[in-house]
């Protein structure tokens, strides 16, 4: 029907077309069985990781005055690079009077379930050449990472409790630090002071050359960083353990101020214990319809006209793909296939059950590959 009017479409160089009409260029690639990033439909990008020599473990000495990185990871996936650094803090919780040791009070309902897991406070920064407040993408990424770490039960609350040691300095000034769990001496019973400290974990995630959706890459980098995290042992000075120093002030009531605070031991570190079975890795997929009208005129088989089949793409990359895809799947699954997080945004494509099953299977394969990378990953 088209050749009755002499129509010669203006043709552009592929790169120019990708810039002018990304969705048309996407469809043209799909009709050739390709993707703009020249990967096959279900092929993931390769991931390289290293701890980047950033964390204090690789440094000869702790930075006494400043802050220290407790765990770090540098992840390169295709062109995108993610630098994650984990730092720590200590927060003191005054245990309410009737608090009893919480192992015995095992409670099952949801709210309490969450109270058994620790959390991490991530700040994501994507470098796009702009200055100013965090963009929506950075805020949603941080919030989603925080929620997923909490709900996937990755960090047991116990791992963040501080086993407080006591530093006793005997007469000639040499100090020795006794930790309750190291020697089951009588000391540990005496220590049951009313105060309890827990570690707080902060993660700073910096992304360079953003080239597609970032949640999965940031999640994987955060997991690798957490696996390398080391927490310092902490102790309190003996003579100030329970001493309260009255401060005399003229005309005001004497305030009781406990001047001691918790000090970290620069020589003793213990790795952060994670629930190994809850360690999971993320991958993303997209479902996109083939638009028959936009296909390149196939020379050979004219008959095989498929009307609007949809295809599953793995690991979205590039502006063309991101602009023309409306239904995405985000999966966090462990290598044994346990699902931690599954999010499908429907969009216009028919996200059929087969596609979902295929994506779950691919996610499990990807997770096992990534966790294998972790075990022999560069220390």
């Amino acid at each position: 029907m088209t050749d009755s009017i002499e129509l010669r479409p203006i043709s552009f160089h592929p790169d120019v077309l990708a810039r002018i009409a990304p969705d048309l260029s996407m469809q043209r690639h799909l009709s050739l069985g390709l993707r703009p990033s020249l990967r096959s439909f279900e092929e993931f990008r390769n991931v390289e990781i290293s701890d980047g020599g950033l964390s204090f473990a690789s440094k000869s000495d702790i930075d006494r005055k400043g802050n220290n990185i407790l765990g770090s990871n540098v992840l390169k996936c295709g062109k995108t690079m993610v630098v994650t650094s984990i730092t720590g803090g200590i927060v003191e919780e005054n245990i309410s009077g009737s608090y009893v040791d919480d192992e015995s009070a095992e409670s099952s309902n949801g709210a309490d379930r969450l109270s058994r897991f620790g959390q991490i406070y991530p700040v994501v920064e994507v470098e796009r050449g702009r200055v100013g407040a965090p963009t929506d993408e950075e805020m949603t990424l941080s919030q989603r990472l925080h929620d997923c770490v909490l709900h996937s039960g990755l960090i047991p609350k116990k791992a963040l409790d501080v086993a407080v040691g006591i530093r006793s300095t005997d007469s000639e000034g040499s100090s020795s630090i006794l930790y309750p769990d190291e020697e089951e001496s009588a000391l540990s019973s005496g220590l049951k002071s009313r105060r309890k400290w827990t570690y707080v974990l902060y993660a700073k995630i910096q992304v360079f050359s953003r080239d597609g959706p970032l949640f999965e890459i940031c999640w994987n980098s955060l997991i690798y960083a957490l696996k390398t995290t080391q927490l310092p042992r902490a102790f309190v000075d003996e003579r100030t353990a329970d001493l309260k120093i009255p401060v005399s002030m003229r005309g005001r009531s004497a305030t009781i101020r406990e001047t001691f605070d918790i000090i970290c031991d620069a020589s003793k570190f213990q790795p952060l214990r994670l629930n190994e079975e809850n360690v999971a890795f993320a991958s993303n997929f997209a479902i996109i319809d083939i638009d028959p009208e936009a296909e390149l005129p196939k020379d050979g088989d004219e008959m095989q006209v498929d009307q609007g089949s949809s295809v599953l793409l793995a690991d979205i990359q590039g502006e063309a793909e991101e602009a023309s895809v409306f239904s995405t799947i985000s999966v966090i699954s462990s290598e044994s296939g346990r699902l931690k997080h599954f999010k499908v945004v429907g969009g216009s494509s028919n996200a059929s059950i087969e596609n979902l099953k295929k994506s779950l299977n691919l996610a499990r394969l990807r997770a096992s590959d990534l966790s294998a990378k972790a075990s022999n990953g560069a220390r």
Partner: protein
Amino acid sequence: MVLSVTEKSYLHESLASVPPARPDGRKANQFRPIEVFTDFLPASNGSSKVVASDGTECLVSVKCKVVDHAVEEDLVVVDVDIAGHRDDSGLVQGIASTLSKVLSTQLDRSCLRLTKKYSFKLYIDVLVLSSFSHPLTLISFAVYSALNSTQLPKLISSDDDLEVAELPTFHDYDFVKLDVSVPLLFTLAICGKNVLVDPASNESDVANNGLLVTWSNGKVTAPIKTLGLNEDYVSGVSPQSLQDSIKMIEQVAPEVLQALGGI
């Protein structure tokens, strides 16, 4: 003052010629007259106001507070506010950071020490009401005269209070004058081969580069940095003109000190 392109190139030629012909007829190492008033803010321990001949006005107030010097690291806090510039602009934050670093390193902490545990912490607030040329020199003059006229309350309680914890108590109206050697910061403009002291606003619009030199207890000291005075006439300078500027400061600074010292 907005100059047209031709005016700027004319001014640049005249400043770059040897000897430099400055629009207001000053010699290369001559300062513009300034008026300095001190100790006119009753609520602060020390204050000064400097008015330059081109209308730039700068107010400095110094307040002190007793603080435990084991806990507080830096005993001098500087806050700069320049009318017409945003607080997070490069100029304001740069000046504030330069000033606080210079003062915290050059002021020796012993003259702020009160007792074994406590010492004075100085809060220096700088307010530049209207700034035409680069305000740093004027601010440093104002800070110098403010600190030299600061009166600190006189301690009457005992000064070794390590064993018995006792807060320092002060005399009701007697004061002690703070005597401390305060550094001075000078900005110079470099045009071609010439070095000009105290550049006016039109001169700093056409300067090739600027230089910040610090003068403290008798000699040129640490922070010496090149400084951007404008955006469009910036170019490299020869090492020789850097040396000339240092020599000029060594020659000019004593006279400035002597002039400021008179207050």
